């Protein structure tokens, strides 16, 4: 019995890979931003899944580790408006573009997205993040967009916090739901 105990504590028994819910925030009122802090470094990758509303048209950005230096962020994006497809390279913001060129967060039609942050605990290389996003408003005047983004975060630090906000001073509203998940490799 003692031998079995030693084996278990030495992790010689492989742990299964897993997709684990770390934290979910569901808004019941208005908030200027949505933050995840103290993200544990016990996973291999992170995935953020969101479903959001705002009080007015808003473009979403994602700030990492409280870093507000414009020079540390860059986003390449391509999007379809429902009529045309285009893309760009954003270097002027102190955050990664999360969604919102021709289709933006709004009061009624959920804007949704999935953001992957790979090898987020690594401390020897800069981070590249990818996301897919979308909102369709049935041509009701809010616009619409399907977009794919890659975000560059120029830091060798592990990612320990994320903050989402909307430009123009707009706020997230009730019903918005942001879920952070961790992905583990087999031990």
């Amino acid at each position, binding site marked *: 019995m003692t031998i079995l105990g030693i084996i278990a504590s030495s992790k010689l028994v492989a742990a299964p890979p*897993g*997709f*684990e*819910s*770390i*934290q*979910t925030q*569901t808004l019941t009122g208005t908030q200027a931003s949505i933050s995840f802090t*103290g*993200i*544990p470094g*016990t996973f291999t990758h992170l995935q953020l*899944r*969101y*479903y959001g*509303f705002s009080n007015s048209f808003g473009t979403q950005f994602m700030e990492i580790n409280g870093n507000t230096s414009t020079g540390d962020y860059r986003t390449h994006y*391509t*999007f*379809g*408006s*429902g*009529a*045309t*497809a285009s893309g760009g390279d954003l270097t002027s913001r102190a955050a990664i573009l999360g969604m919102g060129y021709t*289709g933006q967060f709004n009061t*009624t*039609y*959920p*804007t*949704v*997205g*999935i953001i992957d942050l790979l090898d987020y605990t690594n401390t020897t290389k800069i981070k590249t993040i990818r996301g*897919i*996003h*979308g*909102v*369709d*408003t*049935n*041509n009701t005047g809010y616009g*619409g*967009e*399907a*977009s*794919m983004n890659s975000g560059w975060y120029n830091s060798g630090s592990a990612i320990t916090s994320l903050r989402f906000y909307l430009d123009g001073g707009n706020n997230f509203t009730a*019903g918005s*739901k942001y*879920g952070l*998940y*961790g992905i583990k490799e087999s031990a």
Partner: protein
Amino acid sequence: MAAGLTYEKIQSQTLSSTQSAIQFLSISTAYTDLILVWAYKAASTNQPTLRVTVNGNSSGYSTTQLYGNGSTVASTRNTSASFWSIARVSGTPSTTAATATIIMNFPNYSNTSYYKSILARTASTDSGVELDCGVWQNSAAINQIDVDAATSNDFGSGSVITLYGIAAA
């Protein structure tokens, strides 16, 4: 802080013959998001648009497509439709027995207060890639998913379609 493992298989179907439609019934509302993963095999040269409906409802859908086929990239939208149009231009094969990968996300599908939005990615061996987002202007929880095409017998034997559920902390 972490709340436990999730991403569970709800139901899987492996087609043993050519089919014109697939269906998932009585979907549990115990999860936060649904993910439909389809290892698609074509039984025709039709390169069909996948027509996706939920809850047996045929109104209130709109879908925006962003696609590329190797030479052009473009975007379209079909509004006030009776289904979501997935892989409308690219993303299903135009060659019999060719394959495709289709992953469709249904975020916050079990809420009963707000419209439902979806995100889907499709990629095929010969028609290209497509990203789709869509809305269903209905606040009901999603408990049924149906997929068909305008033409018959497009879904080939050997296709594997799996529905997963992700729960929130």
